[in-house]
């Protein structure tokens, strides 16, 4: 039998599809199905919110009348859905790699700062889901070579636009916030703007890469 996700009614109007037990070694492939499923569900216009998280999807219905129907159809939808039906956007994040901790990260891995920049900026990252704060993307794809344990003491303020590494993840802080990740760079790209028609630049399922900016006239040594 094909392994199936767990499906629960959380309330009279919300459901959880949990596929996190299916294959912990290939989170990305499962997440691609989550994105495709999210996109399909959104097109039905029956939900107020559809929240992908790590290999799961929480579905919030507009009406509790539809709960039983979705409990019944979700397993079939999951087995039928093709992950290729979803295509996200690709974003280029121009980054100045002069973060406070870039030398710490380089030293920790016996690399030069330039090598850290090269490794970090050559990867295409997948936006698994957003959370923690508006516009904060959980990215998949950080090279194992750069996995760095979080700071012993979190900073009280990490500034908006900081590009950072925390354990096996990398990310961009959309707003000033306390944080325990190592800051390796900074971007001026706005990730969240509540006054904009599209408040978040990045959506679940998008991809992005960091493009190193070198100040004119300046050289790395």
């Amino acid at each position, binding site marked *: 039998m094909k392994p199936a996700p767990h499906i629960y009614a959380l*309330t009279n109007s919300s459901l959880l599809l949990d596929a996190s037990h299916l294959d912990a070694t290939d989170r990305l492939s499962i997440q691609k199905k989550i994105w495709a499923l999210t996109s399909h569900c959104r097109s039905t216009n029956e939900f107020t919110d559809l*929240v992908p998280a*790590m*290999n*799961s999807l929480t579905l919030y219905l507009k009406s509790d009348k539809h709960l039983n129907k979705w409990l019944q159809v979700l397993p079939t939808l999951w087995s039928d859905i093709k992950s290729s039906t979803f295509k996200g956007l690709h974003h280029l994040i121009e980054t100045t790699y002069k973060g406070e901790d870039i030398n710490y990260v380089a030293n920790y891995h016996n690399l030069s700062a330039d090598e850290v920049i090269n490794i970090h900026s050559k990867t295409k990252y997948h936006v698994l889901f957003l*959370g923690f704060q*508006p516009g904060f993307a*959980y990215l998949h794809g950080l090279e194992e070579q750069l996995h760095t344990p979080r700071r012993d003491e979190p900073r009280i303020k990490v500034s908006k636009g900081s590009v950072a590494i925390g354990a096996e993840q990398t990310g961009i802080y959309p707003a000033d916030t306390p944080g325990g990740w190592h800051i390796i760079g900074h971007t001026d790209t706005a990730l969240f703007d509540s006054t904009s028609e599209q408040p978040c630049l990045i959506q679940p399922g998008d991809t992005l890469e960091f493009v190193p900016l070198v100040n004119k006239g300046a050289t790395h040594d």
Partner: protein
Amino acid sequence: MIKVLKSGVLLTIQDFGRDGYRHLGVNKAGSLDPFVQIIANRLLNNNDNDAVLEITVGLCELEFTCDTVIALHGADLQATLDGQAIYPGWTYTVKNKQVLSFATGRAGLRAYLAVKGGIQNTEVMGSKSTDLNACFGGIEGRALATGDEIPITPYYGEFIKVGAIAPAQRKLIRLHPSPHANLLGEPLLNNFVSTAFKVSSNSNRMGVRLEHKNNLAHSHSLPSLGVSPGSIQLPPNGEPIVLLNDGQTTGGYPLLGTVIEADLHQFAQFRPLDTVEFKYVTFEEAAKAKQKLDGHLHQLSLALKNNL
């Protein structure tokens, strides 16, 4: 306009909050007691979703710079209008220059103040609510401060005084079952429902933390999953957190269950050291409880229609 002479402990503009942005990490915000917001608005013949002031604990002072009618509801925070006591559940006609003061109360935590026509701040992402964490909505995305001017529309017409009671307070909170029942195990869940919790002083609009003497500690950690107002998280230290409107959109703690919609507003009024207990119910019971609450609101509308 309403001028804030003293902002007190926490004074915010709220309506029903935001839907449709949770996948971007944007929380709901909004009145923690939406039923009281509805009642206060209906007493003024406002729309249910018109923005109101949420007054936590009290100790604030507001001066009106125009005539209006207000409806006060929720916790009794010993309010006075120009020194005269006024009471939750009623409408009051207010004249230009009058001052509304809140002391603090003995029961309940949050009072709601609706004004005729609703508060007129700018809508951001479909709501006038203040998102205190992401700092947008309300006025400049923050709690109101001394000197702020809250925009309202003057009202000079006649208004017949009306009043309405709020749904009863309860200490036994009804829950939907946990999606992590197998992981947490029956002994822990039995322990959970037989515990009388105390509300921690470390509670806020993000969540209510619950203290107790039983052992609910565990060592499970989960891949992040979607959470929402009413989700009860159990961190490894065993002290449950009932997520409220300003809570995060995803989390990695196992869930003990979800508070039924009809009971969630109760958490707006729990004060530190109040006792809370939990009981799992069926989906039918949850739907019935919601119908009862809707019935209360429907009756109010009928009564007001006959009165006006």
